[in-house]
């Protein structure tokens, strides 16, 4: 058994009303207003969507990238419960909370992108299902995962409410819920890549391959670790807590391992398909390909040495690099390397950007409220947070 038990999670406490919550609250309110306007006047009234780029940032960023950012819970659970790295346990709750927020919002937010949203229940009605559709699998899987995460997270609320009886019962089956919580994101994160396969040659060959499911899955896992590094550093500085370097340092090593595996898959696939030559053509696509690759390779330079991995600032930077790489990979596939023919252009409209911003603001707001009021972050006997 452990020689030094982890500190039990405890609410951070402090006021819920401060500059940060007021700002993100205002962004959320603005988003709600824009969505209302969109529901009354249609998608064209607030977005720059067109038939060449029928999916804009509400899909590419809010859902595809947003859910990959929300893979911290998945990646850490994989490490703790499947690969039995129990000492990472204090990271589970905060990571899970961020995932919970990210996925719940992506799931709800996507409804406002649907052109015929009142029919959304058809997704959950077997009579309408098309089992060949990648999107059906993605939608059902994400929905199931959101429920699974709320169950996985419910001990936090039960603890607060003092319902140890229910919590005890829940813990007997928690292993199964956790197993689902690993399987479901593995399924839909890979399928988010498969979504592009049916689009055929409209997707640039640098991003169109039968290996898309593996590529998206591996990057989602590394992004999960990257987000944990990022989040832990932000939460520590915002709440004036000490940084869990003893956990983040080895985590960064795991992240580099998965990242190395990804880069091998990516390069071998490009060579195999003979697509690598296109990366040397003087095109916008090639430029973005190299930006993407640079972001994925950067962590090896930032936290490649053991000494660098003990440095919180470098861990933070490595986390950001991974998030940037995963973001570019997805943007490249869904928008930048997506070409339906001449004459089509897309750049998000201001209200479109504000909704995406509002989504991230809502996540931050939820995270603050829950960590301040519920036992998520490890207890710490430090000065009360002031931010």
């Amino acid at each position, binding site marked *: 058994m*452990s020689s030094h*038990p*982890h500190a*039990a*999670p405890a609410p951070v406490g402090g006021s819920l009303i401060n500059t940060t919550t007021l700002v993100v609250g205002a962004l959320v309110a603005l988003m709600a207003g824009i969505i209302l306007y969109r529901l009354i006047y*249609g*998608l*064209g*009234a607030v977005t720059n*969507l*067109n*038939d*060449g780029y*029928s*999916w804009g940032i509400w899909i590419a960023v809010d859902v595809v990238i947003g859910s990959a950012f929300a893979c911290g819970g998945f990646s850490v659970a994989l490490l*703790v*419960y*499947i*690969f*039995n*790295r*129990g*000492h990472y*346990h204090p990271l589970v709750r905060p990571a899970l909370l961020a995932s919970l927020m990210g996925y719940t919002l992506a799931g709800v937010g996507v409804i406002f992108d*649907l*052109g*015929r*949203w009142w*029919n*959304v229940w*058809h*997704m959950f009605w077997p009579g309408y*299902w098309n089992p*060949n*559709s*990648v*999107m*059906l*699998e993605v939608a059902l899987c994400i929905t199931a995962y959101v429920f699974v995460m709320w169950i996985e997270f419910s001990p936090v609320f039960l603890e607060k409410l003092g319902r140890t009886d229910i919590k005890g019962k829940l*813990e007997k089956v*928690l292993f*199964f819920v956790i*197993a*689902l919580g*690993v*399987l479901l994101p*593995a*399924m839909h994160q890979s399928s988010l890549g*498969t*979504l592009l*396969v*049916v*689009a*055929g*040659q*409209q997707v640039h060959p640098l991003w169109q391959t*039968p290996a898309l*499911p593996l590529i998206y899955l591996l990057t989602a896992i590394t992004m999960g670790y990257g987000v944990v590094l990022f989040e832990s550093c932000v939460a520590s500085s915002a709440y004036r807590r000490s940084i869990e370097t003893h956990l983040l340092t080895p985590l960064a090593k795991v992240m580099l391992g998965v990242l190395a595996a990804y880069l091998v898959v990516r390069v071998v696939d490009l060579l195999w398909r003979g697509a690598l030559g296109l990366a040397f053509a003087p095109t916008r696509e090639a430029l973005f390909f190299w930006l993407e690759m640079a972001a994925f390779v950067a962590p090896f330079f930032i936290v490649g040495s053991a000494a660098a991995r003990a440095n919180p600032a470098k861990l933070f930077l490595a986390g950001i690099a991974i998030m940037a790489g995963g973001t570019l990979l997805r943007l490249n596939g869904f928008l930048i390397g997506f070409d339906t*023919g001449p*004459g089509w252009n897309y750049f998000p409209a201001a209200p479109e950007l504000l909704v995406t911003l509002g989504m991230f603001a809502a996540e931050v707001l939820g995270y603050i409220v829950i960590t301040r009021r519920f036992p998520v972050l490890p207890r710490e006997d430090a000065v009360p947070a002031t931010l």
Partner: protein
Amino acid sequence: MATRRDFLRGCAGVAVAAAAGAVAEPARARETYKVPPEALGLLYDATLCIGCKACVAACKRANDNPPEFSTPEQLWDTPLDTSGYTYNIIKAYRSGNGATKDAETDGYAFMKTSCMHCADPSCVSACPVSAMQKDPVTGIVAYDPDACIGCRYCVVACPFGIPKYQYDSPTGRIGKCELCRHRHKDGHYSACAEVCPTGATLFGATSDLLAEAKRRLALKPGSTATFPRGHLRPGQERLLAGGEDGKGLRRRQGWRAEPDQNYEAVVGNYVQHVYGETEYGGTQVLKLSAVPFEKMGQPSLPPTSSAASSETIQHSLYGGLIMPVVVLGALAFVARRNVVPEDDGAGHGKGEDKR
């Protein structure tokens, strides 16, 4: 102390389960579908087209679509591309001084854009709620707005950029050619073919249209030959012999009687390729042209469909949910050993790693 061993066991367990799942569900590559034998379609011959756009107007009327303006006066219906309100359009190709019809250089030519009614449609494979469906007999790819959730995956998927969404409406729907299937019961076939003065757009059974296309490719360019207008009769006959089911009955009514509209015209200098014969497994709308198809905005597509690739991946991973269930079993087994109750408030795996 059993840390590294546990770790490896975790990896191995999941890997074995995944491999077992993959074996239990042998990767069965989904073949690209073929055009159904009784499929209906169009043959568009760019060398016959005079660019009159009667077909565009007829399509608007047949589908109750409003005009779309692109000129300042807003007098004429002048759509620049297909849209949620325009299912058929004639686009022009122009090169150099644009003097000669159907010449690749210093010439001009016309090209029809509308749904190709693919043998293996990407839109049907993509649609999560079965709102895009291919009729098993006629092969017509039909859209059902009452089922559609407006996700626009069909728009993203289609290699020809055909399904279009109505972004200007809060209740927008997808618009695309359905080969005027709503008019078939009255004996009317596709309005664009019905109205075409030159037979450049011809309606019929795809197999007959393909035979007709090949006949044209074999003709001597510049010679005179007979060209049909409206629709091809043999296909009608074949459909008349249809079954006793409701569909057969409808089809046995046949198309409305029309006078023979064959006429003599000069044979074009065709590119020796029937566009749509092999693309993505074939399409029910076929095209002939004197200017290379790629210059006419027609993508060059492989004989295997992207729907087949996508479904092969999807079903090798998730077919019958066998693999997910096996992996879930393995994950649950491993997790069960590694999850300990959090009553002590500490909560850590029993195989705690001591570094």
